[in-house]
């Protein structure tokens, strides 16, 4: 069904981050918002993406914002970096989703919700690292990779899952000894994302706790946040609720704190 060769081919085909994006990220990393905006403007697709996201209701701006330097100013350094990473991720996502009932808009909704709530979590944990703030942008790659690898085998996978409750991550691991989060790590390396990003996302798989205590704690919060979002009706209907296994024991010690922060009734 899915072989290691197919996975290697998939990773091979992931394009490196375009030059303009790389430069934008470097400038943002140095805090040079104006210069970064100028470079970002040269990539028309990125400009259009940035304009579209900042005017979404979730950001709550009254007036339409269309100037890139203004957008970067509003989002701040980290927010701008996250927006650029989210844009890179959207380049990876398919035009038409087959395995999951998603589309461009619902995928962006998921990205936005994760970014905003991750920021709440990091504020709550008093963590200010830019790299850790950006880590959340890699998490949806696990969904994109599942879609890419399994979309040609939907009937087979459904038959398999009708006989045994197996999530996509487990199926991939058992077939190829590589899981979705390993592939996410490969993507992060290809896009030259900071090492911490992949470390947190690997821990957020829920099945590979990190030896680094802080990374592990963040992995727990990210794992729980993912399932908090995937429990929204829109994503349950899209078939995302069980795309990976929810490791309830892993997040047990942070659940109360999480539910207070997210005001779970």
């Amino acid at each position, binding site marked *: *069904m*899915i*072989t290691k060769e197919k996975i290697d081919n998939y990773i091979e085909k992931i394009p490196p981050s375009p030059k303009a994006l790389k430069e934008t990220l470097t400038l943002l990393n140095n805090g040079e918002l104006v210069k970064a905006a100028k470079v970002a403007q040269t990539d028309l697709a990125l400009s259009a993406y940035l304009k579209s996201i900042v005017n979404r209701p979730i950001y709550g701006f009254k007036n339409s914002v269309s100037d890139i330097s203004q957008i970067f100013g509003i989002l701040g350094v980290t927010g701008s970096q996250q927006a650029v990473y989210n844009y890179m991720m959207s380049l990876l996502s398919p035009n038409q989703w087959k395995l999951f009932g998603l589309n461009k808009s619902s995928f962006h909704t998921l990205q936005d919700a994760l970014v905003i709530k991750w920021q709440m979590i990091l504020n709550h944990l008093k963590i200010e690292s830019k790299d850790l703030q950006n880590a959340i942008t890699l998490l949806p790659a696990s969904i994109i990779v599942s879609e890419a690898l399994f979309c040609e*085998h939907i*009937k*087979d996978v459904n*038959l*398999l*899952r*009708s*006989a*045994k*409750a*197996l999530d996509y991550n*487990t*199926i991939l691991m*058992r*077939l*190829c000894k590589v899981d979705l989060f390993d592939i996410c790590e490969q993507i992060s390396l290809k896009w030259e994302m900071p090492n911490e990003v992949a470390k947190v996302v690997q821990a957020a798989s829920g099945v590979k706790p990190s030896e680094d205590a802080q990374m592990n704690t963040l992995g727990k919060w990210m794992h*729980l946040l993912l*399932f*908090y979002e*995937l*429990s*929204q*009706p*829109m994503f*349950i*209907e899209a078939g995302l*609720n*069980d795309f990976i*296994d*929810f490791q*309830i024991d892993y*997040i047990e010690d942070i*659940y109360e704190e999480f*539910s207070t922060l997210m005001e*779970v*009734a």
Partner: protein
Amino acid sequence: MRAVVHNGIGVFAPQGFLDGNAANACLTLDDIHATINLKADMILVSLKKVVFFNRNGLDAFVKMLNKVRAKNHITVGFCDYDNKKYDAIMNFYKGEMSFSLFKTQNIAALFSASFKNQSKTLLVYCDDKSQRASIAIELHDNGHNPVIAQSLEEFKEKSSNPGSYDSIIDNTYLGQMGQNIASRVTGNAIIYTVSSFLDTEISDTFNIAYHNNSLNVGFKLFIFDAYKVISMNIHALNFFSKLASTAAEYNATICFAGLSFEKTPEAFKETMEDAGIMFFEQMDDILQDKELLKELGGSSSVGSKNKRVINKTLVTELPRFIDATISTIEMMTNSKAVKETAQINEIIIPQIEGKIASSVGFYGAIDGMVILVFPVEIAKKACELLIGEKTEDMELILDSLSELVNIVGGKIKMLLADENISVNITLPRTYSDLNDLLDMTDGRKGAQINLAFDNDHFSFFLTR
């Protein structure tokens, strides 16, 4: 979201946060319809991976469970919860619970009508006296040995020595239980437990699909454990007479053990005997008498006298059957299959040692049976995806093999549906001893295709 059925128990496994909106999104009308049509003895919702739920979240599932129960008369409920979740559910539904609660799926299986393992010694405790008694009675009826702790102190004391019990049953609640007739397999005999008054309801509560499947796959002896039957009426008499006629077509025997005719007309006994049903005072009169058991067909799954030949329709569809099998095994083993030889004959297995087999029947627009014969090593490899690790546990391998054959059956059903041929598949049967398979297929001609998966040889046999 769909339930995954294993050993007759269908389980929904929602994850994360289960409020009213989430639960309603989990269950579409199609999902509810599909659940009603499932051939399961029990439908459960596992709360193992639910970190938060509220009353509205459970209500959506309860509504679905009630519909399933009303339609199919089976046990429904929730399982896989900790003490906190159990207390929450009890609080939500105080005094209005029609569904059951089982601490784990394994505990639920002990109450299932088609349980596999009987005679378990079980410690039972519930602070509600009537629940305690109901649990014990239900377990006893299903062939177990419940030990009841009458007080919390007694329970704590007894449960401190867990080695004495196969399972400890607490925080379990029995709502309206399924009325399906419990069935269990002893050797090659199937025992059904019936009780109380047998009337027209027996045709609803008896799992006729399971029974017919058992006949199809070669079971010859069916015993009704009727010690607790008080009486039966003419509708039940007609039902058993019909059952006996069907059994006769397969050269199978139906027996009753322990049935008293104090409140049932003696004439009924004569009618049933005329239909071929045999009566014994004690179950052991049959099970302990090896000669009798052999004569009645309960010592081996001997071949059916109703041997039918493979027909043109089946041969026409043969490529689809083979495609379904190959693609499934390729998917499970991640290896390529090579067809070696094909023949129409009785099944030929050159060397039966080190091989296991599984069969699945199909019926509807066309009918027949697919038999897959695996060297143990391929079976292990094919089941690795389902089990998750290499194992030498033959029971686990056979169990996974039946799941695998179920997947093959599902794929066959799907491919035939593409050709507008509608079939249903039976429950799979596995054979650890190929002599049993050879007995069952004795005299049946079919199409045998020998295949190689990475140089391991494997046989596919399609017959009727």
